[in-house]
């Protein structure tokens, strides 16, 4: 079992460590509208009917005429052209090749008919070719062609892929992050321009993309909802109802698939939860949660944002939102409501400023100031001068920026949060040095990324708040000591016979300490530059286990560290002799011949303590 080459083939053929493909039952049939898939051919045939018939008639009339018009042979005797000569003449005349008058020079009567034939055939050809070109330019035809193309591409996708419905800003960010990880995905978006952008964008992999409504289950089926390789569905359109439709379609047609959907209201999130158990991402709700987490446990929040940003991300600065005092929230829409509720739940006082009295109802409490926040008088009434925190959460970037400026002028010591709606305004918000910036698309993209990138990362993130702030601060210290200020790759390692064939006997021995596994195969006195973030055993999670943690078969590990460490660890897991050296220090011959020889001479005696080099 410890042969790396055999293992490689095994993995190539079964391609998944978790056995997702090998073991699972075949997915149910999801109806791909067959007519749609083969439409272009029929469309061409149908549209070309009239031009082809015109062409046939023109040829037939010309040929028939040529055989009927009286001619003369070389000796001047009356002669009539046969069908063969006539068809030959028409073929080279109609295609503008023009070999001349054969087999004998034409009589005036024949020339007259030939002239008619020439003009007729030119018209026939022009009509036929014109129709064909017009068909190629036709929108419906191109859509049908694109549909067929995408259907074929998705059908040929052998690797696991994600179905991404909605390719807005969040979809784009998520797509790039997934592409960086080498994950495949397919995209469905209603807007033509977004799909054009996607095709112009540079991705490592080929991304099948289709212009279509995500609400249509047929389109989802074309994009591989029924495919056994589809591993998750992500609904990120800017329309909550379309997202709900995707959740429904996925839950009803492929109940076993994980679904992640974006929702911007609590009510919509509830409606989505009624279908299976989709993971709902609400950017406005998340912002409030994050702000409260940052206030309660700054180090945990820092670790969370670092991990969510993915490999290569720089360690974010530690932010300290005030934990006591009064907050002023401008804009009482979806964000304002959620944020005010979160802050109040945290025991903080909140004053809400909203221009429309109609929208701000009784649940805003007494601390409601009706008026336009840009008005300095309104801000003064809201008590900005005595507040500790300020959030500009309207859906207008210009308003938000001017709100922040006005609030800072009134109270320079404020902790300021703002919502950025348009990506183009990012430099302005960066220049304002907002303490905590909400970019809904980025929040969604990071959240979905954390759920999809590495199976255990999401679990780890959920475990984090329970461990306390000191633990998080220490973990950040250890991570920066290990890998610097830029996050290294994260990967999951299941200790199954398939993924770690060399570990079987060692794990079964009951004395498999984690610290031994992470030794360097080149020199076991050195540790690998890798850190185990989480061990999951039968659903029980242990965050950051120590070096003495005892591993058992079937454990799942979440690791982070250098790419070199990942490769070294893979060798330990698959090659018996390397594993033996790493965990016990015994140098065991790797080759069959040497193993035989050493067994014959000194079978049980290991060469303890010897080191290579």
């Amino acid at each position, binding site marked *: 079992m410890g042969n790396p080459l055999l293992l490689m083939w095994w993995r190539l053929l079964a391609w998944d460590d978790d056995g997702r493909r090998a073991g699972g039952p075949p997915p149910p049939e999801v109806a791909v509208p067959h007519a749609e898939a083969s439409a272009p051919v*029929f469309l061409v*045939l149908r549209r070309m*009917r009239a031009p*082809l*018939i015109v062409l*046939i*008639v023109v040829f037939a009339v010309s040929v028939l005429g040529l055989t009927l018009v009286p001619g003369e042979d070389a000796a001047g005797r009356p002669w009539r052209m*046969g069908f063969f*000569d006539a068809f030959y003449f028409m073929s080279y005349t109609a295609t503008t090749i023009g070999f001349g008058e054969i087999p004998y020079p034409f009589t005036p009567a024949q020339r007259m008919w030939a002239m008619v034939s020439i003009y007729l055939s030119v018209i026939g050809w022009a009509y036929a070719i014109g129709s064909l070109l017009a068909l190629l330019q036709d929108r419906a035809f191109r859509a049908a062609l694109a549909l067929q193309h995408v259907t074929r591409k998705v059908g040929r996708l052998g690797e696991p892929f994600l179905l991404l419905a909605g390719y807005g800003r969040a979809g784009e960010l998520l797509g790039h992050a997934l592409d960086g990880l080498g994950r495949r995905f397919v995209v469905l978006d209603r807007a033509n321009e977004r799909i054009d952008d996607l095709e112009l964008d540079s991705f490592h992999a080929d991304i099948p993309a289709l212009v279509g409504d995500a609400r249509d289950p047929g389109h989802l089926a074309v994009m591989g909802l029924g495919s056994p390789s589809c591993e998750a569905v992500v609904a990120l359109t800017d329309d909550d109802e379309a997202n709900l439709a995707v959740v429904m379609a996925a839950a009803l047609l492929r109940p076993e698939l994980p679904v992640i959907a974006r929702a911007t209201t609590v009510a919509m999130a509830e409606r989505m939860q009624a279908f299976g158990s989709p993971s709902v991402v609400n950017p406005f709700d998340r912002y409030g949660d994050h702000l409260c987490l940052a206030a309660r446990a700054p180090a945990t929040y820092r670790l969370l944002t670092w991990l969510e940003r993915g490999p290569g991300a720089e360690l974010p600065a530690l932010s300290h939102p005030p934990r006591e005092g009064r907050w002023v929230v401008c804009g009482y829409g979806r964000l304002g409501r959620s944020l005010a509720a979160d802050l109040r739940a945290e025991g903080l006082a909140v004053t809400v400023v909203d221009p429309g009295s109609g929208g701000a109802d009784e649940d805003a409490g007494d601390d409601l100031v009706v008026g336009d926040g840009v008005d300095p008088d309104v801000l003064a009434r809201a008590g900005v001068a005595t507040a500790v925190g300020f959030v500009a959460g309207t859906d207008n970037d210009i308003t938000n920026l001017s709100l922040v400026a006005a609030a800072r002028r009134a109270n320079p010591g404020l902790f300021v949060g703002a919502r950025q709606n348009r990506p183009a305004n990012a430099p302005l918000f960066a220049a304002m040095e907002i303490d905590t910036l909400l970019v809904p698309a980025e929040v969604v993209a990071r959240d979905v990324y954390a759920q999809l990138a590495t199976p255990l990362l999401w679990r780890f993130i959920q475990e984090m708040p329970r461990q306390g702030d000191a633990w998080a601060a220490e973990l950040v210290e250890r991570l920066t000591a290990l890998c610097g200020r830029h996050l290294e790759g994260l990967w999951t390692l299941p200790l199954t016979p398939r993924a770690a064939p060399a570990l079987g006997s060692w794990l079964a021995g009951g004395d498999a300490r984690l610290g031994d596994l992470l030794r360097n195969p080149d020199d076991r006195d050195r540790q690998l530059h890798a850190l185990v973030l989480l061990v999951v055993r039968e659903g029980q999670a242990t965050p950051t286990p120590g070096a003495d943690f005892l591993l058992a078969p079937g454990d799942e590990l979440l690791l982070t560290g250098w790419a070199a460490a990942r490769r070294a660890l893979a060798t330990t897991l698959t090659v018996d002799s390397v594993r033996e050296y790493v965990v016990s220090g015994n140098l065991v011959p790797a080759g069959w011949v040497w193993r035989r020889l050493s067994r014959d001479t000194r079978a049980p005696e290991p060469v303890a303590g010897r080191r290579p080099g």
Partner: protein
Amino acid sequence: MNLEKVVFGFFVVLAATLNFGFFLGDIDDPTMHNRYELFAAVVVNLIATVLKFGDRTQLGAVHLATSLVADLQLIAAALVLGYAAYVSTAGLTAATTASIVSLSGGALLANLVSVVLLVVETASFHRG
């Protein structure tokens, strides 16, 4: 009344009748088989084929298939005729005529299937 159906039926039936007209007569007697009739049969068959393009139904597919068979046989017959008249030194012999007519006989069978399909289609059409 649907004009498209009229045109379609007209060409399908005309293809069969022209084919039948050419096929009729002693199999090896060149004088009984007019080459203009064969020409007309080829042209009408081609038009009937194009008219059957782009129909997605099962019946439409069989229609198209029978037409393609008839085209193939008739064009083969025309090629044999052309070869006999222009290339072969022996000219149009009784044996060549027989092969031309038997090829057109095969096409006639395909055309008859086409007509039967047309009749079946018409008979099974219920006015709702």
